[in-house]
């Protein structure tokens, strides 16, 4: 690990000015960035500490009925916030399914979006990796690929994006607000993370000099019918093999609109709008969710150690859909019910 310069910013403008430069990093919680630095995977020249920007530490109601989550609000504060618990319990569930209490107390909402993959080869500096060292190759394709993608991968990279929180943000159609040297802009959540393609070193569409300032949640929160079902090798503090966030609204017992997003299966939270449209007007039954699963998993392809995830994802979509009928059956630490 290398030494670095350090500066504190007390406003967004100050941070953006100080952050200009290829090896300059904004640091908030630091739970992933400092880990990457300790493993010699990133080599920051300057850390710009943004924790002093008070205006990014609030959760506020928006005039349209939505909610604005400040980028510097911690994951735990967000998960336990009364407005989030009441109106966006799906988001609360996904946050509490990730990491540990200690990490969630430091990790911020903005940082959660920017965490890097936990691909074993990416994390091993002695190993080739197209994401870490473009052009060096991808040992995961023919190596240990249990955690890896079954959808949307390329021959350059089969890594998965590890966030749980972002699976809910994808389902909720959140909007990411960012500020850079050229001003502020909004990025639809579906456009924020990107597939690896020929440029697996790029995880997302955030500009190098841009700072995330907030995440806006639209009014629709699916508080009545939602579920986050995360399957992993141990029941806590593990990344998802497959996870499914489900939310829908019922009218006269039929699905009026639905959202389904998957984690652990691709380089991005995976969402297929055709599957959600398919569910409209249907009863919330195993058969309906199985039909949606077919559309979501169309084109899925497994590797030596992760082909099981295709069938696992199919069953998880169905189970999550059924569990969403009664969200009270979900408890942190509890095995999946039904």
């Amino acid at each position, binding site marked *: 690990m290398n*030494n670095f310069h350090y500066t504190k910013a007390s406003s967004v403008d100050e941070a953006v000015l100080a952050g200009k430069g290829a090896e300059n990093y904004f640091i908030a919680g630091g*739970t992933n960035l400092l880990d990457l630095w*300790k493993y010699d995977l990133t080599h920051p020249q300057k850390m710009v500490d943004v924790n002093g920007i008070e205006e990014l530490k609030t959760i506020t109601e928006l005039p349209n009925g939505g909610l604005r989550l400040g980028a510097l609000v911690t994951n735990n504060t967000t998960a336990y916030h009364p407005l989030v618990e009441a109106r966006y319990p799906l988001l609360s569930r996904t946050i509490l399914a990730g990491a540990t209490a200690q990490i969630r107390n*430091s990790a911020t909402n903005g940082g959660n979006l920017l965490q890097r993959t936990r691909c074993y080869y990416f994390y091993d500096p002695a190993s080739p990796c197209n994401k870490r060292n473009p052009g060096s190759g991808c040992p995961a394709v023919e190596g240990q690929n249990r955690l890896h993608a079954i959808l949307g991968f390329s021959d350059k990279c089969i890594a998965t994006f590890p966030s749980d929180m972002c699976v809910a943000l994808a389902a909720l159609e959140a909007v990411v607000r960012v500020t850079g040297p050229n001003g502020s802009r909004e990025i639809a959540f579906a456009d924020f993370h990107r597939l690896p393609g020929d440029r697996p070193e790029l995880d997302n569409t955030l500009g190098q000099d841009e700072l995330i300032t907030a995440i806006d949640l639209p009014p629709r929160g699916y508080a009545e019918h939602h579920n986050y079902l995360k399957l992993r090798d141990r029941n806590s*503090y593990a990344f998802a093999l497959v996870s499914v966030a489900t939310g829908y609204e019922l009218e006269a017992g039929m699905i009026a609109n639905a959202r389904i997003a998957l984690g652990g299966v691709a380089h991005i939270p995976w969402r297929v709008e055709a599957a959600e449209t398919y569910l409209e007007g249907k009863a919330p039954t195993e058969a309906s969710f199985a039909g949606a699963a077919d559309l979501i998993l169309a084109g899925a392809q497994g590797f030596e150690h992760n082909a099981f995830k295709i069938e696992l994802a199919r069953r998880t979509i169905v189970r999550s859909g059924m569990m969403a009928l009664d969200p009270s059956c979900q408890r942190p630490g509890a095995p999946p019910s039904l």
Partner: protein
Amino acid sequence: MQNIPPPATRSVSLRVNGKPAQLEVAPWVSLLDALRHDLDLTGTKKGCDHGQCGACTVICDGERILSCLTLAVMKDGSEITTIEGLGQPGNLHPLQEAFLEHDAYQCGYCTSGQICSGVAMIEAGHGKTREEVKDLMSGNLCRCGANTNIIDAIMAVKDGNHE
């Protein structure tokens, strides 16, 4: 180490276990190393140094965090409680007493992190059931296998059987 930037150190003011503490540290020094090396508070342990084991858990401004994944300079102005601040021989914290009573450790290396983590969880009011407490304590590993007794000790204090 490459290019050490001048000036190499920064001033950091903390309150640690109720007392003011002034540090001069390089920006890349973790809060964990600052506590152990600069302040000689070696009750906080370095296990993995990567946020996987929880041995370095301390309470910062009322919340349990991993001191290994935090730079000391990021916590300027913060109030830190370590195991030394929770209790001392003859004046133990109820959770420390409960760890003794429930035989909640073997080698003891994870214990200070477990106790700081458990105290902050109880004070935050989180963990309504044993199942939830187990989930909320998953950031603290015990490789001796005392986990069941650790949860017993925490539940005893939560339920008010220790005061």
